[in-house]
């Protein structure tokens, strides 16, 4: 049941699993919903889709799939199924007022009407609209939908006929949530987690069971021993390139940044533009007023800090190699000198580049920086981050 729908979802790159699909069938078996297409839509969504970002893609697939089902004409159903007279009579009493029933009787009664209906269904092969004899929509014949004949039999028209209103899934209210990301933030965080270094710091707070037992056994009297709590002791400095050509990479960098600030408690970040010079800043809105001296930063943070540069390394080569080459101000010393000072201070360093790796060789400045960083440059992809964590955790990586 609905197997092709399941595969359509798979084809649309929506991560659905067999288990979830079985859940849906199970829910249908358990009659969680009545026979209502909207409820069916909600049920499939709650069973199969686990992220509001995917709702929009799901809506599209659902709409496409169920359009093809809607196209089955009522006439096809009527002519393939022999509907018992009793059943239709019952429907009659529900749909018509007494006054209307009386008027139907004036036309020869319900049996005659039904007989004519069946006869006409047999004669009529195509879909029909308008006119005054054939069954279809908007006509004046007694049979069909949206008609003007009070003695007519209404076919396929319900108070809640879904064609009238825009269907729920056609509204596509979740469009804003879909941002088909290449990687999600979670996988970044998991990748960055490899950088954690566990160490026991702070005051003795945790009960050390091993030590307590051995000491108690030795002395014959209970002697509670405590130890320091285990904490993630990794310290990270993040230098982020902002502005100019970095604007097109902002989303990726934001993700990396939010992942990093979630994983590391001891994280300090600074902004620079294009290349590192004598001044950096902490708040990008106030970059001109609140500059920090790069010297001070280098002196403040010890060698144990891991140093991560994030930037596209795309600039004029002069900005790196000659004094006064910077494009925003006059720098007394070339950027290269500052970069080398930084990586001498923090021997565990990496440059993360959001530009796709195969384009690196076409940019001279990228190659210069890669050279300064002794090839420690990785792309801003999941693989790249993974590689970066390996480099940063091996003290003597070359």
């Amino acid at each position, binding site marked *: 049941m609905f197997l092709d729908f399941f595969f359509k979802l798979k084809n649309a790159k929506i991560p659905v699993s067999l288990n*979830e699909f079985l*859940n849906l069938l199970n829910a249908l078996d358990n009659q969680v*919903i009545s026979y209502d297409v909207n*409820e069916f839509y909600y049920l499939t969504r709650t069973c199969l889709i686990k992220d509001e970002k995917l709702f929009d893609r799901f809506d599209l697939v659902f709409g496409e799939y169920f359009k093809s089902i809607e196209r089955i004409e009522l006439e096809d159903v009527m002519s393939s199924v022999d509907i018992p007279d009793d059943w239709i009579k019952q429907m009659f009493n529900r749909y018509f007022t007494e006054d209307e029933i009386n008027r139907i009787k004036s036309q020869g009664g319900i049996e005659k009407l039904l007989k004519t209906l069946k006869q006409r269904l047999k004669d009529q092969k195509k879909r029909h609209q308008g006119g005054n004899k054939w069954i279809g929509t908007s006509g004046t014949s007694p049979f069909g939908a949206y008609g003007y004949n009070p003695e007519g039999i209404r076919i396929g028209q319900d108070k809640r006929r879904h064609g009238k209103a825009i269907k729920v899934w056609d509204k596509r209210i979740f469009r804003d949530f879909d941002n088909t990301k290449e990687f999600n933030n*979670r996988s970044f965080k*998991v990748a960055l987690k490899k950088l954690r270094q566990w160490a026991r710091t702070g005051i003795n707070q945790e009960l050390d069971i091993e030590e307590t037992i051995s000491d108690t056994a030795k002395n014959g009297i209970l002697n*509670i021993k405590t130890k320091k709590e285990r904490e993630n002791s990794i310290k990270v400095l993040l230098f982020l390139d902002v502005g100019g050509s970095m604007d097109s990479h902002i989303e990726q960098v934001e993700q990396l940044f939010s992942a990093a600030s979630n994983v590391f408690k001891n994280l300090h970040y600074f902004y620079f533009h294009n290349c590192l010079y004598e001044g950096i800043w902490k708040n990008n809105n106030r970059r001109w007023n609140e500059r920090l001296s790069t010297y001070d930063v280098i002196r403040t943070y010890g060698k144990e800090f891991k140093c991560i540069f994030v930037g596209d390394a795309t600039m004029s080569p002069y900005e790196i190699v000659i004094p006064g080459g910077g494009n925003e101000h006059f720098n007394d010393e070339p950027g290269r000198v500052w970069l080398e000072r930084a990586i001498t201070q923090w021997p565990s360093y990496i440059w993360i580049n959001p530009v796709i790796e195969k384009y690196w060789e076409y940019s001279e400045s990228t190659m210069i920086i890669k050279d300064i960083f002794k090839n420690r440059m990785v792309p801003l992809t999941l693989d790249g981050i993974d590689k970066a964590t390996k480099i940063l955790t091996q003290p003597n990586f070359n």
Partner: protein
Amino acid sequence: MEFSGSKNYISTNDLTVAVNASIALEKPLLVKGEPGTGKTELARQIANSLKLEIIEWSIKSTTKAQQGLYEYDAVSRLRDSQLGEEIKDITKYIKKGKIWESFETTKKSVLLIDEIDKADIEFPNDLLQELDKMEFYIYETGKVIKANHRPIIIITSNNEKELPEAFLRRCFFHYIQFPEIDTLRKIVEVHFPDIKKSLLETALKKFFQIREVPGLKKKPSTSEALDWIKLLLVEDLDSKDLKSDGKNILPKLHGALLKNEQDIQLFEQLAFMSRKED
């Protein structure tokens, strides 16, 4: 057992289907949505309308999955043994956690795991087995605890961390959307049945106007709307009092709606710009 909202809680059609599916198939329901759209309230209302006991487990950044099952008090046991008591029954050193509590109730219960995204990124993975089979093993006593009645489990998340795939696969999922004006009207009427029609309409109109201003840091949501209208009623304001002039684009008592300085500044700028146009 079927949930269809209650007299204090308006449940939209899609929410009702999701809740009933999770009750019928006895699987956890994960609820996400903007802050203040009634995620936590949902669990309480389900318990209320089905007349079940509710057990709330609020997650903090230091919460471990194990704490939901049980905690073993090794120190007390050590102390007692030092005092020369013979320990026959170690079960008294085992403290029940919230999940265990919900497994042991005499009737079906509702277990709310609130703000699961606050915990460590691996937290949901540590609960897979327990939520799937509704049983767990106590190492200290070697006993297996099985649920008498599988509780209705509602899990809320504020999207601070993404949840692992394996965990998501075991849940039903619902995203509580910010209500449309009709639904919000119903919600307000449920809370303040005596509110004057004219005040309600003006307030709702103003509220949605504020929500739709682009660039807001924190859009006001259902709970803010309710707080604001409550204030309006307490102060006994009229729909006329809510009319804004060019000088003051924000309605009275907007402190209940906008809780961010930058957002209020944004409105001041807008007012300034509209005055310039005049």
